[in-house]
């Protein structure tokens, strides 16, 4: 490919690296390594792998703790005074917003997924809200069934959560592995395109069959991808037609693929929500806990959506560079996708291993 603008290329690569670094940072923030519960009941959220500074992170943590601490007092107050319910909902919302800035809500997974999968911010927002809603639903259903109906102990509930986690983390790894496979091909394809330029084939525009096997072994199997059942058109970000078409390299399955990501991320209930639910149950105010959980999810979704939008925006910028000059820019873009895909996979594995490491300790 002609690369007469080496400066722009360098800029493109820089940007690509910046996006990758951003994702990595989000991943570190997510501190995906799970830990066991010190008292054998209740699931802690992930622990930070390294000391976190006082600054912004410390501030967020302090706010989270403060809001969380106030939740129980507000639930107790709501028992005597109905108007305290509004405080409870408000508090739950801000707690959700702040808590999602902490670990355990799949920000990194969602962001990496969006970047790897060249999703629109629109889809990113839907993903964030859908996974947060699912997360709230799982928490409510878990406590509803386990505690209210079956009257099981906290220990049993903790075990149920652990199984849910295994499924969730395995799914994340599977979604990641699939992305790595697809994006790895895209990268290789771009590599070849860079080495030996040739005209791109027109996008065919046929709707893709969900979850069908992907066959991009050669560059001639181009087909324009339309997300089946997608809420969003897919034509706003690859108007360039050099080298490998991102549309052709997108993973298979459109909306179903998104669904897998939603389930993978949203399946694991937040331990804070479970504690709030069980506590409100003990206070005879289960429904207040349910309302709080959903409002918490709303706050969580807002934060995750914002972070996902940032990630998608970073990628869109990189895409522009790539569009301006294919060749290395395109290659860098494909590289970022591969990195993001590898990150999704790695998050899944790390989460899973965190669980594995803690499993034997759980002699309950």
């Amino acid at each position, binding site marked *: 490919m002609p690369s007469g603008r080496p400066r722009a290329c360098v800029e493109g690569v820089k940007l690509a690296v910046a996006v990758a670094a951003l994702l990595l940072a989000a991943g570190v*923030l997510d501190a995906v390594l799970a830990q066991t519960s010190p*008292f054998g*009941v209740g699931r802690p959220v992930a*622990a930070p792998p*390294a000391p*976190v500074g006082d600054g912004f992170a410390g501030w967020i*943590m302090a706010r989270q703790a403060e809001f969380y601490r106030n939740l129980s007092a507000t639930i107790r107050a709501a028992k005597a005074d109905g108007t305290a319910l509004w405080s409870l909902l408000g508090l739950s919302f801000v707690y959700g917003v702040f808590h999602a800035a902490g670990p355990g809500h799949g920000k990194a997974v969602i962001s990496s997924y969006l970047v790897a999968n060249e999703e629109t911010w629109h889809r990113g927002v839907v993903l964030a809200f859908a996974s947060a809603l699912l997360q709230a639903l799982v928490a409510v259903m878990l406590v509803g069934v386990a505690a209210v109906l079956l009257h099981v*102990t906290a*220990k049993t509930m903790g075990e149920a959560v652990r199984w849910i986690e295994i499924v969730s983390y395995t799914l994340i790894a599977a979604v990641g592995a699939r992305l790595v496979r697809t994006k790895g091909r895209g990268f290789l394809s771009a590599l070849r395109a860079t080495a030996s330029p040739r005209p791109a084939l027109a996008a065919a525009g046929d709707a893709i069959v969900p979850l069908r096997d992907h066959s991009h072994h050669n560059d001639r199997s181009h087909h324009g991808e339309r997300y089946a059942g997608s809420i969003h058109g897919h034509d706003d970000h690859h108007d360039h037609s050099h080298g490998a078409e991102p549309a052709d390299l997108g993973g298979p399955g459109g909306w179903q693929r998104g669904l897998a990501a939603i389930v993978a991320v949203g399946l694991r209930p937040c331990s804070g929500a479970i504690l709030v639910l069980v506590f409100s149950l003990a206070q005879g105010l289960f429904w207040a806990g349910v309302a709080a959980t959903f409002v918490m999810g709303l706050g969580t979704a807002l934060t995750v959506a914002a972070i996902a939008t940032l990630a998608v925006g970073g990628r869109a910028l990189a895409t522009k560079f790539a569009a301006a000059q294919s060749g290395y820019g395109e290659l860098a873009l494909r590289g970022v996708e591969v990195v993001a895909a590898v990150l999704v996979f790695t998050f899944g594995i790390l989460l899973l291993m965190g669980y594995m490491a803690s499993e034997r300790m759980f002699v309950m």
Partner: protein
Amino acid sequence: MAHPHVWVTMKSEVVYAADGSVTGVRHAWTFDDMFSAFATQGLDAKKKGEFTREELAPLAEVNVTSLKEFDYFTKAQVDGKKAAFNEPVDYYLDYKDNVLTLNFTLPLKMPAKPKKLLLDIYDPTYFVDFTFADTDPVALRGAPAECKLTVARPNDATADSRQVGETFFNSLTPSSDYGARFANKISVTCP
């Protein structure tokens, strides 16, 4: 950026043998009401909303078993050397005013007569927030009369606690001292 999901208000006793050597530490950890409600969820009780020590015995067992992995959140230094604990003894849970209190004794593997004994209680990952009780958080049980007790809360900026902090932090791995800033410190000096 985990934030605490469990709050513990604690009272501790440093336990001495008749010959003046430290044998261990006895903790009484009172949990917050949210965690207490969660932990007692689904437990059978003769009287609704109240739990006897016997009814809570299986839960206490679960607690101390699970705490092992976290080294009971208690680090001991005997004259500057790290000291190990045996498994907890005399443990039980009490339930009062809707909160649980876990009582247990951590026996030192090797009872000692140190000039300086340091105990740090904290969760490195800060999932659990440990705070000394407002009144009489630490007591010496059976200690020689000359021994002097100092208690430092995480936010104490006294010269003494800073000094203890620095020496202690140096002995920790970088990845494990996240919660160290929240450490509660007990220091006993004997001539």
